[in-house]
């Protein structure tokens, strides 16, 4: 082409689409949350018995309908807020802020895993193996926690390091496979999730991973010395401080280190990175390994937090998948990821309160999360699937209508 003017639309490739999804704007993100809340409100209202009853005589007495509507939606979201931030009905100020503490505690695994996946996104890697990496971190962390008996302080550190190493091993595998064979990290990490699940299930059949004398597939609890110290008896623990420290660490890594520069360069233009003498393969390995380690740290939240859980096949919950949403919502940036983690932690915490207080099922939280993902990921995806042109480039031929108008206009000026 001789002209710099936009060229014909290129065949969409999924890496480019993926890059668009992970680079969505802050406005998109905020609007996605708002729309999700609206969709949630419609579902809540539609399922509410009072609303259903009053809608039958909507035109006779519209007032009843709108009151019912307001009560169902307002009640549910008020409960959600009270469960996630401040409980106004609580007896003391400490109890009033307990929901906020739960939110913060809930956010810890999401922040760790979200940071990991966001880092992968920046390198152009879609690591959806968070789930498996968390499980491996959990295996290491838990075993070190109940099998060893170390002094206060030291034991926590050993467990945290163990969790990091466990996750890192599970991240290293897809990293080295991608680097040496070009294996698609999406497929490898999905399969490794399954492998990790079955490995965990197998380990829990071994006597060494079980509570002595028990036949249940649950490990012993970790030592009290291995638990994260908590603040003021709330669920908020040193784990949250570590998560924030990890966010700062990832920020430094991405913005101030040569490795981060390489990661971003490889993610933005692999060919230019290669031509500049960067080792793309080792960069992939580093990203996946560090990411795996961070995911492993997510496992410390249920194992070392208060209340503590023992190792079971459900230890990773859905953290690994929720973290994808968190990273997308946080636009793969550390600060964004922390905020998105807090939001999702809050939805989790508030969801229980909402269910208990108003009978709105907690599944509505899943709907909110799903709508958010859909709104962020869908536009580039839909465009890629249906090969639609980018509306920002208006070079698509439109019918003569526009042409006529402009011709008429130019004739007037001529």
């Amino acid at each position, binding site marked *: *082409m*001789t*002209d*710099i*003017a*936009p060229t*014909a639309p290129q065949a969409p490739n999924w890496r480019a689409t993926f890059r668009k999804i992970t680079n969505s704007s802050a406005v998109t993100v905020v609007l996605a949350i708002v729309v999700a809340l609206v969709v949630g409100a419609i579902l809540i209202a539609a399922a509410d018995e009072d609303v259903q009853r009053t809608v039958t005589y909507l035109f006779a007495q519209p007032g009843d309908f709108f009151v019912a509507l307001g009560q169902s939606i307002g009640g549910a979201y008020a409960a959600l807020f009270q469960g996630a931030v401040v409980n106004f009905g609580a007896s003391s100020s400490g109890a009033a802020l307990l929901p906020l503490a739960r939110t913060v505690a809930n956010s810890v695994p999401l922040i760790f895993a979200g940071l990991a996946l966001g880092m992968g996104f920046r390198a152009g890697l879609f690591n959806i193996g968070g789930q498996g990496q968390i499980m491996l971190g959990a295996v290491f962390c838990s075993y070190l926690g109940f099998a060893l008996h170390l002094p206060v302080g030291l034991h926590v550190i050993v467990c945290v390091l163990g969790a990091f190493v466990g996750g890192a091993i599970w991240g290293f595998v897809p990293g080295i496979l991608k680097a040496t064979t070009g294996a698609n990290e999406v497929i490898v990490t999905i399969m490794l999730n399954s492998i990790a699940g079955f490995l965990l299930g197998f380990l829990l059949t071994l006597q060494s991973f079980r509570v002595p004398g028990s036949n249940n597939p649950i490990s012993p609890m970790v030592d009290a010395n291995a638990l994260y110290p908590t603040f003021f008896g709330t669920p908020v623990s040193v784990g949250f401080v570590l998560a924030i420290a990890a966010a700062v660490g990832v920020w430094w890594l991405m913005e*101030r*280190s*040569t*490795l*981060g*520069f*390489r990661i*971003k*360069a490889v993610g*933005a*233009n692999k*060919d*230019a*990175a*290669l*031509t*500049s*003498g*960067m*080792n793309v393969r080792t960069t992939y390995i580093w990203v996946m390994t560090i990411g795996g380690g961070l995911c492993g740290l997510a496992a410390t939240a249920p194992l070392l937090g208060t209340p503590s859980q023992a190792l079971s096949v459900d230890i990773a919950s859905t953290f690994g998948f929720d973290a994808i949403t968190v990273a997308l919502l946080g636009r793969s940036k550390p600060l964004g990821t922390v905020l998105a983690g807090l939001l999702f932690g809050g939805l989790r915490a508030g969801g229980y309160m909402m269910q208990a207080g108003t009978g709105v099922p907690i599944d509505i939280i899943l709907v909110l999360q799903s709508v958010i993902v859909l709104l962020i990921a869908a536009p580039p995806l839909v465009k890629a699937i249906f090969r639609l042109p980018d509306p*920002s*480039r*208006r*070079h698509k*031929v*439109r*019918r*003569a209508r*526009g*042409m*006529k108008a*402009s*011709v008429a*206009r*130019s*004739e007037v*000026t*001529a």
Partner: protein
Amino acid sequence: MKLELRHITKKFGDFVANDNIDLVVEPGQIHALLGENGAGKSTLMNVLYGLYEADGGQILLDDQPMQFAGPGDAMAAGIGMVHQHFMLVPVFTVAENVVLGHEPVKGPDLIDVSKARDIVKQISDRFGFEVDPNALVEDLPVGIQQRVEIIKALSRQAKILILDEPTAVLTPQETDELMSIMRQLKAAGTSIVFITHKLREVQDVADVITVIRHGRVVGQAAPTASQSELARLMVGRAVDLSVDKTLHQGGPVALSVKDLSLVEPTGRALLEDITFDVHKSEILTIAGVQGNGQTELTEVLIGLRKSTAGSVTLVTQDAAGRAVTTDLTNQSVRTILDSGVGYVPENRSKDGMIAGFSVAENLVIDQITHPPFSRHGSLDTRAISANGARQVEQFDIRTDTAQAGMGTLSGGNQQKVVLARELSRDLTVFIASQPTRGVDVGSIEFIHGQIIAERDAGAAVLIVSTELNEVTALADRIAVMYRGRFVGIVPPDTDRNVLGLMMAGIAADEALDLTRQESYTDQVQSEGVDHD
């Protein structure tokens, strides 16, 4: 058919690609549209061809206003376009390609192949195209493929033919042949719009020249106008078309390449037994039609591809003046860069820069692991910014700040960034592929100056270019590549026609003989180099 464009305006966002352009092409006229890269020539033609919708203005054919919703409408109205990148199906025959989209059918729905062949044969014979309708397109040389495109347009009764940069992919001989085809078409009454930025071609063939700059028509010229006049119209100021340099003999060998081969696992040889030396303080340019192994050669030299045989050796002098050799054969890119080789890749936006990074970051992407830009794995952002500001100043990179996104710069300025990055290091060898591709004339002068300055500072310079003018302007010696081999290495004052024949694979001696016999030399324009 008479074509008239009135007040055509086309905007992309805030960028006005065509600003109120008027153009009249009389029947049977060759109308050259001359302008720099990015002047808006192709946009205008895409509007005419129905690919873009104009934001304002009118298209008239024989004084009838027309509205084209797409290329189909334009073709039906008698407009044919030959794109710079051919729109042919490589595995189809010529006949199949020509009828593609309006196939003659027989029976229920069978392509009438013999009729398709007849169409091709008829047009081919009429204009002496010598195209075999049964040949597979992928087997044909580029010049013939272009004729297939022209036949395709003519088979649809095109009265107006748009040729978009038709000579970019041709050897000088093929270019001459195209020119004679254009004259024949003109004699047969076809109007031709000829888009180009090459002054020589315009003077050869055009009846009327319209010059476009920054999306506006800045003037018309007769073909008798001198090259410097045309260049001044194109660029908007006087341009020095000659490259001011003295020929260098070169010093000791700095880069020695021996029997370098690159054979694909399938057995296809991309490079075959390439042997050459580049001396200190010397520019060796590699000429050739695109796709004859130049890309592969530079990629092997810089370590992006691994050769299958042969060696690459770097020779430097130590303090005592003794030669120190370093084997660079199949080393990593990192090692090769660090041993004093600079590299400007052919495809700037794909391999040379990261559009999402700032100018300052792009200026250090291949040095980021080295002091002063980083220490112990930690970036020194201050050093990176300072370096950015300094290079922007020194290389006259037109941007408000070095922190601006690389993607916001013009092609010429992006190229200056890439060049600045490489030239700011101490280089033993400097390799640049298509250093001025997609770069405006003003920047070309500057870039050529920088390359020569690097040579004068003692570097061995290897330039790959498909622009013959650039090759001859910069070279101390010229190597010609054809199908992965070096056809020969000749002095820079070698006749254009000899170079052209060499680019078609004919050995230097033979090419020299041929041109003597045919006394081509009479036609040679001896005024030296023009700008592109």
